[in-house]
């Protein structure tokens, strides 16, 4: 940072860093992302955070809490209130050699940036025949269950997974969030990073010294089982684990697969599981129609048709706008609806 630029943009200078947390800590989802962002900012001076209210306020969910004070307003940038502007200028910054991490304040506000994301960000590497890479991360707090007003609880991830050139991921635990945000920032490809905001305050163990090594793609089996494969990602992985717990008490063994990414979609891991269980249920908050569940069902049917004991079933949102908060839990894939689908798969 030069003095000239700081004067020109009214930027504050960094302050002393907060005490370093090390080792394995029990952290909230939000704090895990915060520390992942902090590590990326500390490790690479080209990393920038951009978004509305992410500076002094620390973001409306406080995910960037303390980072403005530590790294200054040239690197933790409070932007004008314009999502297309945030992503569009991030593209320009990336062309100049920076690694911008944009925060879209809420899922339902990403659409002004949809054009920049799908027509520009997604295609620049392709149309430049690889001459330009755009290492831009777009963080999107998404999903429901927080009692919010309209446009604050949506799950638009499939709209981006449908566009070639974007990686679309969603962590399911604080440990995953900590490593995946760092890998997203390190990726030369643009990454849509969907954060399950309803899980922001749930805690889990995070090894802060670990070097992220899982990659941005590749599903993982988070609970082994033998009777039904339950596929989930982001906020519904916890729902699936609870369903597996409940089903175990009744003698049903559920294997839970966390997709981690929906672009690329790791069908191989799911298929390997389904070949053993013969049954598959997919759970997500996004509407079922044209959703990830439909894609998983089609691919699993192609990959292991003769192993299936029942059709692949889907549990998710309905083909209705996200409802008002008082009835949102009737829209979201609840534990009961997941178990109902598991029962249907078992009795087909």
């Amino acid at each position, binding site marked *: 940072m030069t003095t000239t630029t700081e004067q*020109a943009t009214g930027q504050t200078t960094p302050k002393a860093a907060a005490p370093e947390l090390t080792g394995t800590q029990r952290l909230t989802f939000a704090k895990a992302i915060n520390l992942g962002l902090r590590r990326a900012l500390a490790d690479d001076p080209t990393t920038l955070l951009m978004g509305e209210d992410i500076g002094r306020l620390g973001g409306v969910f406080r995910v960037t809490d303390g980072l403005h004070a530590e790294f200054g307003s040239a690197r933790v940038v409070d932007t004008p209130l314009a999502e297309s502007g945030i992503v569009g200028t991030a593209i320009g*910054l990336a062309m100049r050699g920076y690694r911008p991490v944009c925060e879209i304040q809420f899922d339902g506000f990403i659409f002004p940036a949809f054009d920049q994301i799908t027509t520009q960000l997604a295609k620049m590497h392709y149309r430049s025949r690889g001459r330009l890479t755009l290492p831009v991360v777009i963080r999107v707090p998404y999903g429901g269950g927080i009692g919010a007003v309209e446009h604050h609880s949506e799950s638009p991830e499939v709209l981006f997974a449908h566009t070639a050139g974007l990686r679309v991921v969603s962590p399911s635990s604080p440990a995953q969030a900590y490593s995946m945000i760092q890998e997203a920032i390190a990726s030369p490809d643009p990454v849509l990073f969907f954060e399950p905001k309803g899980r922001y305050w749930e805690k889990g163990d995070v090894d802060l010294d670990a070097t992220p090594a899982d990659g941005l793609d590749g599903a993982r089996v988070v609970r082994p089982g033998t009777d039904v494969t339950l596929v989930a990602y982001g906020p519904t992985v916890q729902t699936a684990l609870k369903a597996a717990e409940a089903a175990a008490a009744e003698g049903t063994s559920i294997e839970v697969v966390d997709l981690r990414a929906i672009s690329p979609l790791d069908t191989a891991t799911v298929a390997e599981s389904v070949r053993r269980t013969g049954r598959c249920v997919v759970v997500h908050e996004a509407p079922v129609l044209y959703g990830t569940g439909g894609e998983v069902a089609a691919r699993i049917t192609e990959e292991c048709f003769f192993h299936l004991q029942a059709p692949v079933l889907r549990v998710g949102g309905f083909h209705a706008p996200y409802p008002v908060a008082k009835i949102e839990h009737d829209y979201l894939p609840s534990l009961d609806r997941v178990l109902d689908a598991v029962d249907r798969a078992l009795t087909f």
Partner: protein
Amino acid sequence: MSHTADDLRTDAQAGPLTTDGLVQLLDPDGNRVPHPQYDERVAHLDADALRALYRDMVLVRRFDVEATALQRQGELALFAQALGQEAAQVGSGRALAAQDHVFPSYREHGVAHTRGVELTDVLRLFRGVDHGGWDPTAHGFHLYTLVIGSHALHATGYAMGVQRDGAVGTGDPQRDTAVVAYFGDGATSQGDVSEGLVFAAVNQAPVVFFCQNNQWAISEPTTLQARVPIADRAPGFGIPSVRVDGNDVLASYAVTAEALERARSGGGPTFIEAFTYRMGAHTTSDDPSRYRPAEQEEYWRRRDPIDRLRAHLEQTRELPQEFVDALAAEADALGEHIRTTVRAMGRPSPASMFEHVYATPHSVVDAERAWFQQYEASFLEGHGQHGEGSAR
């Protein structure tokens, strides 16, 4: 159709097509018009420099003619002419420094030429063999942008990066860097252009917004985009603006040089409205006879930017016949080069559609490519059974 005088003399209209306040250094007859603010910006341009600008414009015009002919012969899928906008493009382009970075729209062939982009590479896009065609970093000239106005934000973001690199206001002419976004009158209605102005203003980013008001967005006149001169919007964002006669290569050079200097020195963004005329169609798919009178085209044909500089050079006796002859031969050679090069641009391999979708391996793309290659090969080998486990 019957037309009023206003239809023909669009430059005499009020509103966004007024000629009020246009900076002009050469009048339409090629006479040098003194200007207290901008004379100094062109004082160093001697006869050689003026002839170089003339040469640029003539070659770009020839490129336009050749590309249009190639489209008519079926060698290009489409072409968008720069016809009539050579002065705005060459004048502004020649004011740039090597380290500056340009974000063009899709008609900026004249600027491409000034940035050293091989003009035949521009035709890769129009032939349908490439979505880009050149190395944007090598020339400081980004790929064409077809989504109108999107790149105003890229230019602004790039300029914010320039600020963070400390490449503004150092006083080092080799280091201080400006960014230019080129777009048209239609683009100014896009939200991204307004957002670009907001981000540029609050960051005081070193970016120049160069709007070629060529009076037509396909069939829509500028009066459908604005009620007042487009340049008048910028001060509302806190950005100084200037209107320039875009058919005057000297004035276009001068106002751009001033704006670039402001940007490089840390003075922030500038908005330039170059008032010009799209003499040709929007693209080879367009038919202007459906929406504008031939008399209007004729009016502007008589204000051709190349004729203007030629008239000036002839008046000052700085256009010797040997130069004219050599330039004609150079243009002929360029034409031949374009025809030969374009016809030799082969069809990419079908499997190349999978290249560069991502910078790192993506399992779905890899699986689809593998399936596609197997499928293609099956026709050659006479077999190709795809059972369970195929990607499609």
